[in-house]
């Protein structure tokens, strides 16, 4: 039970970042796993909100999509897609947005659209925006969960799908974005937070067992590092057991 992967560490670290009782707009994939783990451990009153219109879902199994039936039948309320964006996200009612990324830059701008080539003939066509641009601009704050590698952490993203801090200090205010923006980027190596003055992502925490050099090598720009770096304690036996149980619920449904 004490064995775990870097991805497990990332998922557990992301789940710990969620305070109990918070309203959370949940993206697909890693964010959804971390949010459901948090609900099963330290944050049983987390309010999970999915772009399919499910508000306050309490799934007993880990959903594969953001619109699995389990999310609807366990929700406090199910609303239409225009309503979830216009009445719930747009007014800033949702405290935290939880997003993934294919590429991210030093100002936490996110690309999930295209990689390489040009827009019309990209090397890799990614899924695109989904709910992310408005989640990134309108939630009270944003947490990003993404594996750290030179392919992902780019000096410049190939396409700005969702805005972090734009071109630096003051950009969000100039653009009129109401939410505070990304407050944490949680990776398989540690946690980055925006510098209060420059908005540049700064490595503030390394997961237990990770060397600073690894984080620098995994970053496509000259990584800024906090003066005193903290350490994420490794996943506890309880956290790992809850994570295994959660992942098993998806396998059990698939079987």
């Amino acid at each position, binding site marked *: 039970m004490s064995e775990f992967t870097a991805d497990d560490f990332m998922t557990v670290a992301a789940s710990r970042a969620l305070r109990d009782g918070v309203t959370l707009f949940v993206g697909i994939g890693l964010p959804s796993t971390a949010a459901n783990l948090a609900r099963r451990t330290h944050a049983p009153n987390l309010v999970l909100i999915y772009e399919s219109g*499910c508000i306050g879902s309490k799934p007993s199994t880990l959903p594969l999509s953001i619109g699995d039936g389990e999310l609807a039948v366990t929700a406090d309320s199910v609303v*239409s897609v225009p309503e979830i964006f*216009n009445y719930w996200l747009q007014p800033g009612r949702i405290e935290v947005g939880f997003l993934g990324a294919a590429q991210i830059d030093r100002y936490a701008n996110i690309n999930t659209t295209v990689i390489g080539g040009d827009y019309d003939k990209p090397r890799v066509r990614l899924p695109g925006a989904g709910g992310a641009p*408005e989640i990134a601009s309108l939630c009270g704050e944003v947490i990003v969960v993404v594996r750290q590698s030179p392919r992902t952490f780019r000096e410049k993203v190939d396409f700005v799908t969702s805005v972090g801090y734009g071109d630096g200090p003051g950009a969000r205010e100039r653009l009129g974005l109401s939410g505070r923006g990304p407050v944490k980027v949680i990776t398989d190596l540690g946690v980055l937070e925006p510098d209060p003055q420059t908005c540049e992502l700064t490595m503030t925490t390394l997961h237990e067992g990770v060397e600073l050099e690894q984080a620098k090598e995994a970053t496509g720009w000259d990584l800024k590092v906090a003066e005193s770096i903290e350490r994420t304690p490794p996943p506890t036996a309880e956290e790992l057991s809850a994570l295994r149980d959660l992942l098993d619920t998806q396998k059990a449904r698939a079987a």
Partner: protein
Amino acid sequence: MAEIVSLREAVASVVNDGDSVAFEGFTHLIPFAAAHEVIRQRRRDLTVIRLTPDVIFDQLIGAGCVRKLVFSWGGNPGVGSLHRFRDAVENDWPAPLELEEHSHAGMANRFAAGAANLPFAVLRGYVGTDLPGRTASIESITCPFTGERLTAVSALNPDVGVIHAQRADREGNVQLWGIVGVQKETVLASRRSLVTVEEIVDELEPLPGAIVLPHWVVTCVSEAPRGAHPSYAQGYYDRDNDAYRAWDPIARDRERFGQWLEEEIYAAQGAGA
């Protein structure tokens, strides 16, 4: 007044080559059977519209039915890429694919504006992203009352709106519940509509929170049991997550996809034929 006809007749009468066709259903109630009938009838040059293209559009694109895609998130949820969609964008196979790309909030508002007979919708969205530079149907607008800068997106009024619902009665009144996505807006925004249903019943039992679309806003209703599979119909069957996973290796390979098309679509009769 809705006509109740077979799915084959319905597609033949409402979907023409060159039409713009929205197939809605957000993860739930995705109208797969109707799309398969469109492929079987070999419609061409369609503009297909959907927030989440999903496996249903991977199939239409791979089969060569589509000229243009209007969308906001093109992945296989929880699984990965839509390989036929990617092959079309990256390699022009089987044909070049024109894109009109939005966010979910923008697409949802475009359908709502279309349903309300307005030329555009207003939202707080897209600002600072690269999307407005790529998509002509996104523009900045100034509020005439406060002077605030907001975003306008043009309305969607497809030639045809296709949805799947749980049931209809014999007059063609349609009832759906669970995750309802933008299905109501899609039917009301479209010039013609086709609704496939799990079953046609004598009387619609009222259900709290269910949407009823009266027969006089629907063009055709067709019975297509399991017509949303591998997505799901709440109260009838669950999402077939295994089938979504199994699609990945089929769609990855042009030959395997071609074989799937021959065996599962062209050689098959289809639901409610």
